[in-house]
């Protein structure tokens, strides 16, 4: 702990991962990878794990991957903590049994959420950070919520002049009504609005390709809707481009103007859409090489030479537009789809906490930004933001009551 060679005290960074999300496991990988990459001279990383139950834990054991495989029995070796939703606590509060009243606080300077998906990337935990008045990295509440809803992010990005594919949202409540009597008419509405098959069905607020199905006929659309609604309260249907290429770009906050990384083309094993397995289970990584797990392990082509430079530039400039329009902060990854028949580039989605923080894109950018430096920048932005916010007046005193 203590001080570094410059005499400055190292800041304690709570790296938070896990969470109540289908992408729990991936978040653990992102979190553990990230801790190894943090600059040890400037930061003192502190792992905080949110179990699938929603309980928070901290302790050095969390750094060991075997801990997660030995759950739930290994949970007894770590300390349960929480963040109280009130300003000025100064860190995480240790939860203890009711008899032992002397609950103490683990001091934390900066919170670094490394969650993917629900409750961690969707503004929920960001809301808690705001209430607790702590410094945290990445998007604020608004950016997180917008980023999580595939529908709302599209609508806003579209308003800023970036092309998007048409879509139709089906809510779970309309399917649940009258024990499913309206499913067929809802399906007919979708077909009327979007036209021909194949169609793409996905949960409205989820990443990681979970629940995503390509439907080629009416019956498949019915079951695809039910499948997506298993994971979310809303499903989104989009047309499926015949010939397309996925293109991803990462965007990083900068004091003046956000900067875009090089582009990548993720490669699927089947020649079709990327599956969860493609994203996280395939990969060419050797066992034990932690730096290449999770999103970093995906088979991909970074900055492909045969891709039209104009398309690359368009993707990078759209990405910056989307980043700003969606009020994003820190580092995000923005996914596009290129219709190879007419060259139109469509915004698809934004990941406000991208897998492996997209470090693999930044280390190949010109000039390269290595993971440690990337994290330094993300934390610096968070600190600046926190300072700026503290200068905003929050109280006007009691006046109305005195009347």
């Amino acid at each position: 702990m203590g001080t570094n060679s410059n005499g400055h005290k190292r800041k304690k960074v709570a790296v938070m991962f896990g969470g109540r999300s289908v992408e729990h496991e991936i978040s653990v990988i992102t979190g553990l990878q990230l801790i190894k990459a943090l600059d040890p001279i400037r930061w003192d990383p502190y792992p905080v794990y949110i179990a699938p139950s929603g309980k928070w834990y901290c302790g050095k054991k969390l750094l060991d991957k075997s801990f997660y495989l030995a759950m739930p029995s290994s949970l007894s070796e770590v300390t349960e903590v929480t963040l109280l939703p009130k300003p000025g606590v100064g860190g995480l509060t240790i939860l203890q049994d009711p008899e032992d009243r002397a609950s103490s606080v683990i001091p934390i300077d900066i919170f670094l959420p490394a969650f993917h998906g629900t409750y961690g990337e969707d503004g929920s935990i960001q809301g808690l950070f705001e209430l607790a008045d702590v410094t945290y990295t990445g998007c604020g509440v608004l950016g997180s919520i917008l980023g999580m809803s595939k529908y709302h992010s599209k609508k806003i990005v579209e308003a800023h002049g970036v092309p998007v594919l048409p879509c139709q949202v089906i809510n779970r409540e309309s399917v649940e009504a009258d024990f499913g009597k309206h499913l067929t008419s809802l399906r007919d509405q979708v077909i009327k609005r979007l036209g021909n098959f194949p169609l793409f069905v996905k949960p409205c607020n989820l990443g990681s390709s979970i629940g995503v199905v390509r439907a080629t006929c009416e019956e498949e659309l019915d079951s695809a809707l039910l499948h997506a609604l298993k994971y979310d309260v809303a499903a989104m249907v989009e047309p499926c481009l015949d010939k397309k290429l996925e293109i991803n770009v990462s965007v990083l906050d900068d004091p003046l103007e956000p900067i875009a990384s090089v582009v990548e083309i993720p490669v699927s094993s089947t020649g079709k859409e990327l599956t969860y397995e493609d994203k996280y289970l395939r990969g060419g990584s050797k066992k034990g090489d932690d730096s290449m797990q999770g999103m970093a392990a995906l088979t991909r082509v970074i900055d492909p030479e045969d891709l039209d430079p104009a398309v690359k530039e368009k993707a990078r400039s759209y990405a910056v537009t989307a980043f700003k329009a969606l009020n994003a902060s820190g580092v995000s990854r923005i996914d596009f789809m290129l219709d190879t028949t007419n060259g139109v580039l469509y915004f698809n989605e934004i990941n406000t906490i991208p897998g492996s923080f997209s470090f693999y894109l930044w280390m190949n950018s010109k000039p390269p930004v290595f993971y440690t430096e990337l994290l330094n920048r993300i934390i610096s932005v968070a600190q600046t933001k926190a300072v700026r916010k503290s200068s905003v007046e929050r109280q006007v005193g009691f006046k109305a009551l005195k009347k």
Partner: protein
Amino acid sequence: MFDDQFIINLIVVLFAACSSVYFFTRRAKRYMQFLQQEDYDHHRFKKWFFARKAYDTRGSLVCLVGIAGSYLCHNYAPTFTPYITVLLALLLFYVASREENPMTQAKVSLKMTERAKRIYNLALCTYTVSLGLVMMFSFRHFYDYVFTAFWIKNLVLIQFISWYLVKSNWLLDPYEKGLQENFANQARAILKDVDPVVIGITGSYGKTSTKVILADILGAVAPTFSTPRSINSYMGMTREIRERMKPGQKFAVVEMGAYHVGSIKRMCSLTPPHAAIVTAVGEMHLELFGSPENVFKAKSELPQAVPEDGVLVVNGDNVWTRKMAELYPKKKTLIYGLNKEAGPLDVYMYDIEPTSKGTNFAIKIQGKEFQGFTKLLGEPMLSNILASFAMACAMGLAPELVLAAIRNVKTESNRLEPVRTTISSFIGSPNGRPIRQGDILRLNDAFNSNPVGFRAALDVLGSQKGNRKVLVTPGMVELGPKQFDENKKAAQHAATLCDQAIIVGSTNKDALLSGLKEGGLETEKIREVATMKEAFSYLAYDYCDDGDIVLIENDLPDLYESNPRF
């Protein structure tokens, strides 16, 4: 009296006693694992114990050497006698430390639940007390041969380790019963509060799959409670309701297992059903019941518990369940089936067409016809799907939605689901050779097999197009006196359509072997292995080629498969 020699002897024997206690702590947990797998039923545990000859050999060997060594030494070199005991105590420590840890190294690992801890601790206490008494006795009456006497009695104690567990279990039983009833009443209160429509499912086979499918369908339109895996006992259900039932759940799909006559009745007192499905009455678990009539009686307790204005869905392809519809008619009684010959059907599945992706089918219900598809294969699974379809429609769900949900249905895993995968998906123990390359079609039917299911799975294997066809199975269990014949019959059928058979474990080895041979499969195409893992290693490193089809039929828990050594 307390001379130096006495003190030395006392310390040495105390040390040896410590090694014995340590041995107990390691060994008792291993027996505990099997007691737990037998649901703390000491009759079943005893049966397993004697059938497997699970007597101790390792500890007893040390004791025997101790007896002989101490005796001889006492006669020829008395001053060395204490050293012999010290050495052997050290050896016993070593032997104990080499025992496997049942909490990590087993297919169904030991879970040290509160109950398991209570039993274990009580057994440990009584064992230690017995050991103390043995020591006192040895010093009092056999002081001259104190070491020999100690080792003799230690030998007896070590042989009785499982007995200590069984007796502790028996002693704690009334306490556990009281505790259980307390929990069960809490569960009843929760259920009353949430007040879902309870749908009970029982049957000799197919009940778990039907539960999974039905819960999946109902879950598409309303929050639905159901139990995970095959939890189907009174206590299992109690725990699930207490831990997982949430306000707002509209349906509760509960699986009810019949362990003996009266057990379903008892479960119905916990979760009174508004509707029920009986999938089949068959020859499973005959060991527990004795005769099919008793099975029928036990399963009939479910339709009996459904009120007059409730719903009853039964399998028309099974004579016994068809009889239930006649004996206990409800306001809405639906008979479903795949065969019209057995009698009239309310819900009928036909035009069944298996493909490499799943099965296309048509369903007729109340004069209306529907087309459907499922990823699952085999007649038993289609029958389960039909049962779920009938019940979901009876609950008021739109048939179109039910069929859409059925398209998505994946059973919990290992229920005859075609999985196209790579050969490397077999995780065995590496044996130096590289994993073979290529894709295979894997048919997992690795759960509690029965004669009907086994045959259907083989037919699915036969109907699939591919390179070579492989059967991996330990055979079927719990079939009572028919077990040998049923396994042999299944193996005979398998021999006609397999290119390779792998027999796992020794439980049904002889029956399967004779069936395969009589069916005409060459000896070199039959392989015997000890564990499933070994079978997988063989497939991954030595056998499989691109395009092969592998059926994994039945995967038994440790209890049956392994031949543990004690």
